[in-house]
């Protein structure tokens, strides 16, 4: 081959500018390995081209460089990590029989769900049962208490209905004009009951005391407070009484009444 002729054929320019076809390129590259003068001529044209192109350079749009560098940084960061030489050991728990493993897993899962469900249900039932039991006990307690109260009231009110019972209306004295109470006195069995209608609240060291005046002499019939959970108070029995009187005495009562503090007085038929 006449390399000089080849160099002058225009193949260098075609090759460098990308206008040579594949066969021409292959031949050119092959010849470059044999003829340094071909490489030198190619280099000369390339340098001329590059010089010319740089002389003709145009200012590229301003944002392009930033976008390019961003894309490159992304590409660098997005690069896949090298595969670790020590991959984590993963032990798979596989059943030997693949086919039954699925069913077995399903059954196992179903069993666990069922067991949990059953436990929950049992617990709920137990809790509910306990709850009902305790509520039942409370209700029973209330019922007993109410029954006792009712029985007591019925018992007490029977006294009021008793035709033998004498009602003594106790009226307030000058010291305590608002005090009022009723004494129910069953002459057949000497039982004395007291119904407090309005008795002023006393200091905690004081109590009211009921007296029966028998032939002008006061007899203790017991103490009571201004307020009581009982409607009817059972006092001490007395066979005779011309009048009943209430005084304020020290806690627990006095052997003789402090008549200055007499709150109310009621006369019986016996006094007439």
């Amino acid at each position, binding site marked *: 081959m006449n390399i000089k002729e080849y160099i002058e054929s225009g193949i*260098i320019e075609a090759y460098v500018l990308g206008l040579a076809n594949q066969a021409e390129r292959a031949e050119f590259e092959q010849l470059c390995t044999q003829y340094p003068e071909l490489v030198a001529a190619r280099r000369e044209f390339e340098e001329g081209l590059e010089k010319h192109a740089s002389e003709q350079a145009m200012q590229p749009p301003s944002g*392009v460089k930033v976008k390019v560098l961003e894309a490159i940084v992304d590409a660098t960061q997005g690069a896949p990590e090298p595969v670790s030489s020590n991959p984590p050991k993963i032990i798979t728990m596989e059943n030997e029989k693949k086919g039954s493993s699925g069913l077995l897993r399903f059954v196992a899962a179903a069993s666990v769900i069922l067991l949990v469900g059953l436990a929950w249900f049992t617990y709920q039932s137990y809790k509910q049962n306990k709850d009902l039991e305790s509520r039942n006990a409370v209700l029973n307690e209330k019922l007993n208490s109410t029954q006792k109260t009712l029985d007591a009231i019925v018992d007490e009110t029977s006294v009021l209905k008793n035709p033998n019972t004498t009602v003594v209306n106790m009226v307030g004295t000058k010291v305590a004009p608002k005090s009022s109470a009723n004494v129910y006195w069953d002459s057949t069995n000497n039982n004395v009951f007291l119904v407090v209608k309005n008795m002023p609240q006393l200091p905690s060291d004081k109590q009211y005391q009921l007296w029966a005046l028998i032939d002008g002499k006061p007899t203790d019939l017991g103490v009571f407070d201004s307020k009581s959970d009982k409607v009817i108070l059972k006092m001490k029995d007395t066979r005779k009484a011309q009048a009943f009187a209430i005084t304020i005495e020290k806690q627990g009562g006095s052997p003789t009444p402090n008549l200055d503090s007499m709150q109310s007085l009621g006369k019986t038929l016996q006094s007439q």
Partner: protein
Amino acid sequence: MGIPNTYNTEQELVLALKRRDNQAFSILYDNYAGALYSIIKQIITDNAELAGDVLQEVFINIYRKIDTYDQTKGRLFTWMLNIARNASIDTLRSKSYQNSQKNQELPDNVYKGTANQSIQLNVDNIGLKKVLEKLKPEHRVLVELAYFKGFTHEEIADMMSIPLGTVKTRIRNALLQLREYLQ
């Protein structure tokens, strides 16, 4: 073209690029983006924004393909120039570009007629096209079609109704003249 300040030889720059040295890439851009943009603009003549997009694509491709660059086959700039030219021609031929051009009147008779006619191509007087101005018109149009439009010799022969051998010869002659001007 000057070799970047921080690299004494093109070979050093290429090695840095192959190491994916982003700093080297930044220097590469600063040194060559203008020249490559000029080539892109000579191919995509009517859309500066699109030319900018192509420039971006070209540099990303340079980054991705730097490992395939073989210094024994040519200079770095030659390799990059061909990437830029191919990307530009691909864009020119893309469906979206063709569609964007649809409504524009294209002189259909540009490639028709004989080689002896003085065919007025829309040649901006920039870059290599400026060099083409110095060529004989019948040579110029062939280089224009081959280089800036990316047509093969066979396509040009068909288009111009001249024998393939004539196309090859004229292009070779034109390229030889080009070489004279570039020296």
